[in-house]
């Protein structure tokens, strides 16, 4: 059967992708961050998943105001990098696993998570930047990726607890798939940042650090954070952290934190990275 062997929490800051694409990773501004990614890349190269489930949000690229879905699962075989307004990132196409994704839609909906299904969509920096963070610049991404989009742009976003419970449903979906696949699940976005308004530029390193601590030790406490508390403490766009709870919910209670890195600032954001290995037998 398929198994979730690990989870990764990872910011998906667009300028991190741009720094990589434009050869700036050794500039003084970016070097500390990319040095911090080094051990995570080594871990990823050793772990070699067959499939990544990428929990991320689209930023008005694949989707727009006409139709706003809370949860969208991609079931295609091939996703092109999106043009976000400056031409698509020059990174490889992302290849999905249509059979596995189709199984996941059945499992999730019968499990009462009524997701929307995307047969065709482009993928933006929310999905491609975490791949860059973990794989650098390969000619092809080394594994298949199943995109799972969460609406975090339009209020109300799903609650933290709903996102955590979604993770549990995703685990059931994975474990009911007969093929032997090693799956790593990503929760992306955040950490604290606010892009908009007079409060733009807000970063709250204390909140982020506590969030990482509790993601390891007491994730249930994080499922009780309200929308207003996320936005007040971590910035209006810091609410993206709810997606990290989907990743954590998809792991068993018994996890080992094997890597953590946190850096301020990356563009307008507190950048975090955390890796958990699932200890369940």
């Amino acid at each position, binding site marked *: 059967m398929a198994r979730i062997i690990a989870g990764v929490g990872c910011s998906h800051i667009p*300028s991190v992708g741009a720094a990589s694409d434009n050869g700036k990773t050794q500039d003084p501004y970016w070097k500390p961050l990319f040095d911090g990614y080094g051990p995570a890349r080594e871990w990823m190269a050793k772990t070699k998943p067959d499939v990544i489930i990428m929990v991320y949000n689209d*930023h*008005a*690229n694949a989707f*727009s*105001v*006409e139709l*706003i879905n809370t949860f969208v699962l991609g079931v295609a075989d091939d996703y092109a990098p*999106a*043009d*976000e*307004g*400056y*031409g698509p990132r020059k990174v490889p196409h992302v290849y999905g696993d249509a059979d596995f994704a189709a199984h996941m839609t059945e499992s999730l909906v019968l499990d009462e998570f009524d997701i929307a299904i995307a047969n065709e969509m482009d993928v933006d920096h929310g999905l491609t930047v975490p791949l860059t963070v973990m794989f650098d610049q390969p000619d092809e991404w080394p594994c298949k990726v199943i995109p799972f989009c969460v609406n975090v*742009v*339009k*209020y*109300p976003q799903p609650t933290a607890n709903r996102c955590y419970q979604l993770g549990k449903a995703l685990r059931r979906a994975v474990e009911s798939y007969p093929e032997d696949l090693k799956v790593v699940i990503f929760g992306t976005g955040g950490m*604290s940042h*606010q*892009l*908009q*308004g*007079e*409060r*733009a*530029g*807000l*970063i*709250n*390193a204390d*909140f982020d650090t506590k969030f990482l601590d509790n993601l390891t030790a007491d994730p249930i406490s994080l499922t009780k954070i309200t*929308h*207003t508390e996320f*936005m*007040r*403490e971590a910035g*209006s*766009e810091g609410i993206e952290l709810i997606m990290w709870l989907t990743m954590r919910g998809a792991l068993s209670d018994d996890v080992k934190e094997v890597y953590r890195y946190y850096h*301020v*600032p990356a*563009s*307008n954001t*507190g950048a975090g990275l955390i890796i958990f290995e699932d200890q369940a037998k």
Partner: protein
Amino acid sequence: MGLEKDYEDIPGTYVFNGKRCREGYHLNKFCKSLDVAANREIFKKDPAAYLDQYPMTDEQRGLVERRDWLGMLQVGGNIYYTFKLATLDGLNMQDVGGAMSHMTVDDFRQMLLDGGRKVENNRSKAENAANSKGT
């Protein structure tokens, strides 16, 4: 009992709720159209004719034409949408962040390098009002 919109108490923050999404619908659709390369060329050649396609209010259109990044949020614009227009102008998130928070871009960048805008005294309009009365 109605739902409490307690998020409206957060200072300097325009939560993109249903009301703002309706108000800014055509403004955001205009911005969204700029992630198609061919549209960017058409818009650059004749902005006025391009904007005519989107039934925004006169106020919204004026804010777009003046590139008033904060003003656009106040009439229903969403940052991920309006940022497509900023990108077309060659601006980045620090340029726009500085403009929205009435800072020079250099000061805004420096604030980020120094750890970002602090959350202290930035949590609550009501709290800030009470504090300023007390002093």
